[in-house]
């Protein structure tokens, strides 16, 4: 069904593309949100990707690869958005929360630390993490989707996870120290 819609849309059928866009909007937004961590920028990126998909659809050779191709457009749109984000973001310092003792509070703090650590990653590293851990892509699929060598995908994922782990480990060490004191 989707292949037929893609075929029609690439021949200029707007109704077919509207159906494709309706079916893909949530997925594009979800991917963009997870990379950009901002609802407005995610909306902008998803819109840009969908309009880019409409514009460039006739150049898509393998209609079976529409989903992966669209993901690539979303990621590229996120790179553009992130570039403007870097210059416009105020110098916001992430303040460590006061130590809490309850498990719920520790969970909240851990999530905040993960969020803060993730935001420190470059958009390229974020994209690899999201494609792997959220969409379940294997490294070869990530490489193919992003148009990068598999080795680059592997090193980006490794670096990103190491960085996240380092931040969380340091946070937990600090929390353990607080509890011991």
């Amino acid at each position: 069904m989707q292949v037929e819609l893609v075929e029609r849309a690439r021949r200029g059928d707007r109704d077919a593309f509207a159906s494709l866009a309706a079916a893909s909007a949530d997925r594009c937004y979800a991917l963009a949100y997870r990379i950009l961590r901002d609802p407005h920028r995610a909306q902008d990126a998803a819109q840009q990707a969908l309009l880019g998909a409409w514009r460039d659809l006739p150049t898509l050779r393998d209609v079976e690869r529409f989903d992966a191709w669209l993901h690539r457009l979303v990621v590229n749109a996120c790179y553009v958005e992130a570039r403007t984000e870097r210059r416009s973001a105020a110098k916001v310092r992430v303040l460590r929360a006061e130590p809490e003792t309850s498990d719920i509070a520790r969970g909240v703090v851990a999530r905040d630390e993960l969020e803060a650590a993730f935001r420190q990653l470059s958009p390229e590293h974020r994209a690899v993490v999201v494609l792997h851990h959220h969409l379940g892509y294997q490294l070869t699929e990530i490489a193919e989707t992003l148009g990068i060598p598999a080795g680059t995908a592997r090193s980006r994922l490794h670096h990103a996870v190491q960085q996240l782990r380092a931040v969380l480990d340091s946070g937990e060490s600090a929390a353990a120290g607080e509890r011991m004191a």
Partner: protein
Amino acid sequence: MNRTSGLFDDRIAEWLEEDPDRAPAQLLETVLAAMPSVPQRRAGQAWRPAALPRWWQLAAAAALIVVLGLLGLTALYPPTVAPSQSPEPSLTAPARTFTPAASPSIPVASPSPQAGTALPDSVIGAWYHAAPGWWWFVRAGDPACVQAVRTDLDCVVWQRGTTPREIGSASIVDGDLQVAWRSGFCTRITSLYSVALQGDSLNLVDIGGGCEGGNFALTRAGTGSAPTAPPPPTP
């Protein structure tokens, strides 16, 4: 505490799972509203350097360097020309050239924007963007623009949140909005946006030039849920 890779991977996946999965309705509405103004490319127009063999890319880069080098040498050491060979001055001036701004420090845009027409009355005024931010379309001579852009063109002021404003001359070219950014991050860049105006909604879709890449779903200030606009920030 030691964690296995699997547990840590699960933790990341669970954290990502908590993020929203549903797009705002406005997203699809904007796409569908803007789509008619975005022409599709023809299949033959596809060309991506990444699709070329690496040796070809290297050869192309080397050729480009050689050409640029020759051009640089030509610029440094121009050939002497006899007076009788000097070209006659052109009698035709460009219809609307973009001269440097009132401030001599403002650089000239590159690539040069095309000559265009004045903005229609329907877009003049303040528009709200959910970033949050504002777009102000103002007529030539407005104090907000006059120090950054020439005075005989309309202009646009765009400010996202509390970031420094961006100002550019604005004109209509073949039905599209052309902005030659003269102030802010996009300085020297000329962007082209398709324009879809429906009542108090204005959708701008970047169809060339980039910089503030993306599209902008704008609502006229003071209508619907859009707040009343402050005056555009002056230089």
